[in-house]
Each structure stands twice: as C-alpha cells, then as structure tokens.
C-alpha cells in the first residue's frame, strides 16, 4: 500500500530551500527598512524645516510613492531600471522598490512627529544658544523618536509583508521558495501555513524589538 510521506519528512527535505527563502525575505526586508528609514528621516526633516525649493522634490517623491501600490512600485523598479540603462538584478530592483515605499512612509511619520512637538522646545533650545542642528540632535529628534517608534514598527511589518511581492519578479524569497516546494509535493495547506508562521516570526521579532526600545526610552 502506498503511504503518503509525512509533512515533517517533506519539511526536512525542503529545509535548505525554506531556510534560504527565509533568509532572503529577512535580508530584503531589513535592507529596505534600514535604507528606507534613513531616506525617510532625511525627507521628513526636509519636509518639516526645508525651504520651498528643498521641500518641493521631497513632497513630490512622498506623494508619488504613497499614491502608488507597492506592487506597481516593485514592477516599475524591475522593468524601468534596465530601460533606463541601469543594470540591476531582481533582488536589487525589489529592495529598491521596497526602500522607496518605506522611505515615503517614514518621511510622513517623521514630519508628523516633529510638527507635533511644541514650538517652545525649539525656542528654549535656541535661547540657550544651541544651533539648529544641535537643537535637532539633542532636543527635537530624541523626543520625536518616542512618537515615531510605534508607527515605525507598524511600517516595518508592512515592509516584511510587502516583501512577498518580490516573488513576482523572481526573487526566491520565502513565498516563492514555498510555492516551488509545493509544486513538488502538493502539500499546499501545510507549507503555506508554515510560511505564514515564519513571516509571523519575523514580524513578531520586529515588534518585540520595538517594544524593548520603547520601554528603554520611556519617560517616567
């Protein structure tokens, strides 16, 4: 009598593909979150304090990207980069799309947090002789950071979820690896559930990290 192999056995067989997919998902998410956050902070600062000529390009970037589905963004980066003579692989194109997406969202979060600070904070900083950049680094940004954290964690988990879209342009991240495994063993439910569980692990780790930082910087 034919006995279907247990899914644990299949899991063991597929472990390398899954592990590499998991790592790729983590890699592109972390890259996009880190780079996107850097871009977002710069854009947020420019939007808050920049003069008109400086605000305009960032406003255009933020509005354009926020108004575009992240899926379209990933496809655009994948197809447009070569068309513009820029030779980048699927992975880079995907990370670029996610980074642009993350940056635009972080920009608005940073702008909102900075604008929500009472004006007196900047004035009190200036009154003791701090320069603009000193006031920013020692007074305004540390306070804004506390506002930003919860929303930033939220955006970061969105990036992890959006990283599954990279499967469409052929990046063997966790979802695409899972699909390839399923194509071989037909254990659809089991492996999709397992992939979902792994994504949950990544996002839960981000949330825990966020909570830990929040606790550390919480004011009495």
């Amino acid at each position, binding site marked *: 009598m034919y006995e279907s192999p247990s899914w644990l056995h299949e899991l063991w067989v597929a472990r390398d593909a899954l592990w590499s997919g998991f790592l790729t998902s983590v890699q592109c998410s972390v890259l996009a979150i880190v780079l996107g956050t850097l871009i977002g902070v710069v854009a947020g600062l420019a939007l808050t304090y920049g003069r008109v000529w400086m605000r305009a390009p960032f406003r255009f970037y933020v509005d354009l990207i926020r108004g575009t589905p992240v899926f379209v963004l990933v496809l655009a980066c994948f197809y447009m980069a070569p068309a513009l003579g820029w030779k980048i692989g699927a992975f880079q194109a995907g990370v670029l799309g996610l980074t642009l997406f993350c940056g635009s969202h972080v920009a608005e979060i940073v702008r909102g947090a900075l604008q929500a600070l009472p004006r*007196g904070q900047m004035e009190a900083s200036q009154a003791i002789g701090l320069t603009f950049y000193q006031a920013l680094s020692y*007074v305004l940004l540390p306070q804004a950071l506390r506002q930003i954290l919860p929303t930033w964690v939220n955006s970061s988990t969105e990036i992890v979820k959006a990283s599954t879209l990279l499967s469409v342009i052929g990046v063997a991240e966790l979802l695409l690896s899972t699909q390839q495994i399923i194509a071989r063993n037909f254990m659809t439910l089991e492996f999709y559930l397992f992939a979902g569980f792994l994504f949950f692990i990544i996002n839960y780790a981000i949330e825990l990290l966020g909570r830990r930082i929040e606790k550390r910087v919480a004011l009495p």
Partner: protein
Amino acid sequence: MTDVPLNNAQPLLDIRGLRKQYGPLEVLKGVDLSMQRGNVVTLIGSSGSGKTTLLRCVNMLEEFQGGQIVLDGESIGYDEVDGKRVRHPEKVIARHRAMTGMAFQQFNLFPHLSALQNVTLGLLKVKKLPKEEAVALAEKWLERVGLLERRNHFPGQLSGGQQQRVAIARAIAMNPSLMLFDEVTSALDPELVGEVLNVIKGLAEDGMTMLLVTHEMRFAFEVSDKIVFMNQGRIEEQGPPKELFERPQSPRLAEFLKNTRF
C-alpha cells in the same frame, strides 16, 4: 539691586527705534529702551501691547524689520553692510542668544532630560565645559533654586513651580549678561507663584541684569529699578516704580493701573 555702572555712557542693552511687523500689522512702532548693567527693568501693559515681542526680539526669537538692538556692544540680529540690512549667520545668532538667558511662560523644559541634564545641556554643547565642571555648575544652580535633591527627576515628575525654577537654573547657569523673563508666573497655580518670584528676587539682589514681562504688579514694584509701560507697540511712559505707580502721567497708564490688581 543696582550696581553703579563704571561707564554710564555704554549701557548693557540699547534698543533704538525697534520696529516689528507681522505682515501688515505693526506690533512694535519704534521702541527705544536702554538698560545699565545690574538694572532690573519690568515691562508692563495690557496684552497685545508688544511687551513679549520686545523681549523676544532681544534674543532673536522674533525677527524685526527696523531699528537696532545692541547688547554688550554687539549688534543683535542684523548688520548694516553697504547700506543694506543683512541678517547674521545662524552661528552668530546662536552665540548672541547665549549672551542672554530666557525663562518662558510655559517653562519649555526638555521633557526627555532630567532636571540636571536640562541644565547641563547648554553647558556641555554650547559652552563646551568638561562634564564634571558642567555637572558641578548645574548642581550649584539647582541648589540655588532649591531643587538639588530633585536633580534626577524628569520635568513630568515636577510641579509647575519646580519646573519653572529648573528652567531659570538652566538659563542662569549659562552665565548670561542679561536675563529675560517672559510672564514666568502666568501659567502657575497661585500658590506656586511665590517660590518662583523669590528665586527671581534673589537674583536681582545678586545684581543680575534682568528684563521682565509680568502681570505681578506688586512684584514689579518691589524688584524693579525701572518700570516701562507699553501701549499699542510704543513705550508710553517709563520711570522708577514709585513714581510711575503713584503719579502716572499718561491717562492710559492711569487707567491701566486702576484696572490692575495690586
């Protein structure tokens, strides 16, 4: 209260023809005011008369469109270059701001820093003092305002009066040549006003040069060398407190004093 200045000819603060507009609205219409070292000058007047704006022009928290402010021999905010008015670069403005200290109506302590860190921030980053020196100086001033034992408390853990005293310590520790007080008791519960006014009184007795805006008339009377009454963006009348309060010359001041709680 009053140090006899060595050189009467050069006041510490000299404001000439100060003009300030918000769009078409002129809030300062040519103000002249000078202060000697060690003087305590109080600005009084109804709200909207330009007192706070005048104070905030002195440390360039407000830009001004005309006139000149000279503090300790240095032109504040702008210079004349080839007949054109040029705003100082940010660095120079920051340096001039450090020559004055300011206490605000809303305290504006930095909520993410302890009382001690609030005071040391400027000492470390602007004065570039070594850490031990900054801490010692900050502790000295916190002790002076009676809050040494609260040095590790955060602003959120302090009462309004305590926050304002920390804010005064933060400004004074920078050793400014002029202290600006902007309605520092207006946001306080009545029973907390006294502790703040006592600190200011103590500073006045030490010979600190101070320019105040306040609605506490009795306090103004007791602490000031000169009272300046402002009305609609101009100085209407000024003089020693006793003279001004007892024999006001202008009908506007007489009316203001009549309506003011002493």
